[in-house]
């Protein structure tokens, strides 16, 4: 596609429910990143995929968070048993490879009530 696409754009869920967020990167981009941005804060790294290599999961805040990516296509970020502290905008970015410019999607705004 022309840009990074994320869905849904907004998600409201009840505490304790599971949610799944989707990211469709720019075609041909081998690298994919997930970041979290709490209200008024900077970007917090969550997870990085590069091609078929093992993902770098060092930023995932707890074992309730997981992400998958099949090859160089769509990625899903799953948050289990959501907590109010999970409320944030979840941003996905992709790039052609390592160390080259990132392109961000518009994010998914998650609200946990």
């Amino acid at each position, binding site marked *: 596609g022309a840009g990074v696409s994320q869905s849904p754009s907004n998600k409201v869920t009840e505490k304790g429910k599971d949610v799944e967020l989707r990211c469709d990167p720019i075609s041909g981009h081998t690298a994919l990143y997930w970041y979290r941005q709490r209200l008024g804060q*900077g*970007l917090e*790294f969550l997870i*990085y995929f590069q091609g078929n290599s093992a993902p770098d999961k060092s930023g995932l805040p707890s074992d309730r968070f997981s992400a998958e990516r099949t090859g160089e296509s769509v990625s899903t970020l799953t948050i289990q048993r959501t907590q109010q502290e999970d409320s944030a905008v979840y941003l996905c970015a992709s790039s052609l490879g390592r160390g080259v410019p*990132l392109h961000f999607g*518009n994010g998914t705004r998650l609200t946990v009530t």
Partner: protein
Amino acid sequence: GIQVEQSPPDLILQEGANSTLRCNFSDSVNNLQWFHQNPWGQLINLFYIPSGTKQNGRLSATTVATERYSLLYISSSQTTDSGVYFCAVHTSGGSYIPTFGRGTSLIVHP
């Protein structure tokens, strides 16, 4: 890990004024990006500038990698320039995960 500091944290301007935003980093970097996050939350690429100077309209950026800083210049600011400006760096140490600064929040008044 690398530390990225941006200054000032907040900036308020009248339309037409010029400004300089700074990004300092604590280690050698392979590359650096400047982003503008508009009031709707969209992150827009401004510059990919590991070194040297680039210009795009009223905006320009300079990175002096040997001295570990980058500057973003905004001339003749407009209300549409409002938002948060982030710099992000990739280190030379092998990690390809960009580290973001905390951003500079800019408000341009008409």
